């Protein structure tokens, strides 16, 4: 019988949640790294027992952990993220020039084929890579030295590279997103980058159609259709059918198009999920109701999924890396909230159960489908 393993990063540690393929009874293990912010935990597609975790804390900086036994034990690996070359600058909140300085890793994306290779998206925005299982990290400096990089400015969460998408059919292609610079694509394995922001429109920046400055919250892709990208921008849900060369809005009938997460059904590339959030000033769900919205048409037409989710007095947020899907025949969908709940659906979102109610605020949720 297949198993499912959820990797949950929270404001105060990491948790590993496991179940069989029925996904009704869950075993909760943790907290690992108690007391630390765990921005992200992710497993290697090439070796499911190989996990990587990004833990950080304002007092102590960044730590990266590796597990070789599916999360039972962990070992700290290198936390040295050194920008390559001369120090460059980005814009600060007051529009002055501010030197790039490493603060924390937001997202760890293991290679699709090599368990020792992992990409790290960090704040201040840059892309790093290890090819020795975390012993050393090297920057792929082409992104941070993009001609627009000196004009990038942080959002409220910092100048963070939070999304890294790899393409199994094209190892040279990498898509990244940075708040609040925008989205970028490399077609040469990270050496050079181009902005992929045509069609994005953001009223909160001086030129709403500018090349950079868009606060992209998350991007998702179905592995079978790498040319189709879905984006939850600060406001607006967007779609590209040409790997980001151009975007069009698919917010349609959503009650609000502000939000953080977006993900794609494991077997239906036109079925996508978002969790609308009331606004950028009220970071909680509208009307006290926690609703996942699903589109089976690749956007524009959305249905609210509410069965099993609280529909009154609920005021949580769902952060950008806190939704994921498993690859079982009946696709499982999972998300975590800032209220510490992790919800799961074993039927593609038709119905939901709270797997755990009372974790610390959830920062990220990833899933592994294990044979």
């Amino acid at each position: 019988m297949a198993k499912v393993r959820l990797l949950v990063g929270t404001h105060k540690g990491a948790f590993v949640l496991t179940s069989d393929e029925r996904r009704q009874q869950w075993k909760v293990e943790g907290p690992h790294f108690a007391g630390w912010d765990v921005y992200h935990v992710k497993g290697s597609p090439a070796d499911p027992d190989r996990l990587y975790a990004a833990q950080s804390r304002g007092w102590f900086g960044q730590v990266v952990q590796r597990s070789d036994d599916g999360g039972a034990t962990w070992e700290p690996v290198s936390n040295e993220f050194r920008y390559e070359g001369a120090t460059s600058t980005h814009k600060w909140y007051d529009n002055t020039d501010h030197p790039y300085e490493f603060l924390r890793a937001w997202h760890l994306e293991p290679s699709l084929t090599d368990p020792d290779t992992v990409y790290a998206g960090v704040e201040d925005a840059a892309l790093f890579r290890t090819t020795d299982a975390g012993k050393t990290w090297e920057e792929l400096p082409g992104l941070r030295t993009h001609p627009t990089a000196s004009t990038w400015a942080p959002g409220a969460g910092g100048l963070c590279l939070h999304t890294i998408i790899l393409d199994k059919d094209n190892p040279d292609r990498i898509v990244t997103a940075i708040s609040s610079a925008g989205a970028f694509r490399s077609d040469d394995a990270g050496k050079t980058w181009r902005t992929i922001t045509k069609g994005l429109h953001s009223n909160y920046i001086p030129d709403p159609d500018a090349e950079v400055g868009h606060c992209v919250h998350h991007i998702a892709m179905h592995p079978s259709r790498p040319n189709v990208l879905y984006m939850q921008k600060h406001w607006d849900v967007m779609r590209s059918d040409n790997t980001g060369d151009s975007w069009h809005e698919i917010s349609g009938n959503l009650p609000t198009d502000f939000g953080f997460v977006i993900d794609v059904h494991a077997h239906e590339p036109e079925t996508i999920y978002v969790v609308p959030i009331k606004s950028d000033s009220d970071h909680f769900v509208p009307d006290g109701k926690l609703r996942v919205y699903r589109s089976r048409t690749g956007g524009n037409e959305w249905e609210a999924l509410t069965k099993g989710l609280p529909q009154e007095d609920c005021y949580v947020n769902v952060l950008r890396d806190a939704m994921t899907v498993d690859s079982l025949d009946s696709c499982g969908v999972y998300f975590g909230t800032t209220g510490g709940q992790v919800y799961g659906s074993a039927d593609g979102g038709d119905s939901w159960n709270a797997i755990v109610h009372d974790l610390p605020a959830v920062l990220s949720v990833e899933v592994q489908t294990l044979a």
Partner: protein
Amino acid sequence: MIRVELPANLRTLANVGREVELKVDGPVTQRSVLDALEATYPMLRGTIRDQVTQKRRAMLRFFACEEDLSDEPLDAPLPQEVAEGREPYLVVGAIAGGSPG
């Protein structure tokens, strides 16, 4: 042996108790103690001093013999009581003060 007391989160990270003992070759200074600490417990590299700048992390302070040494020169000798192991060198984290941190 030099005694170093660590804040709770770093004890967990290094899998040690409240206090560790270190052998320090040469003059006993803040730099030589921190170097020895990181050599013995490499997982602590970057958590007390920034990896790149080697500066003390802003929300940590260093004490010994009831004196705040945080802004003292790193290569100045530590008090004799620390050098002789009669008093610990303290790495102290700022209290959260009720912040969400």
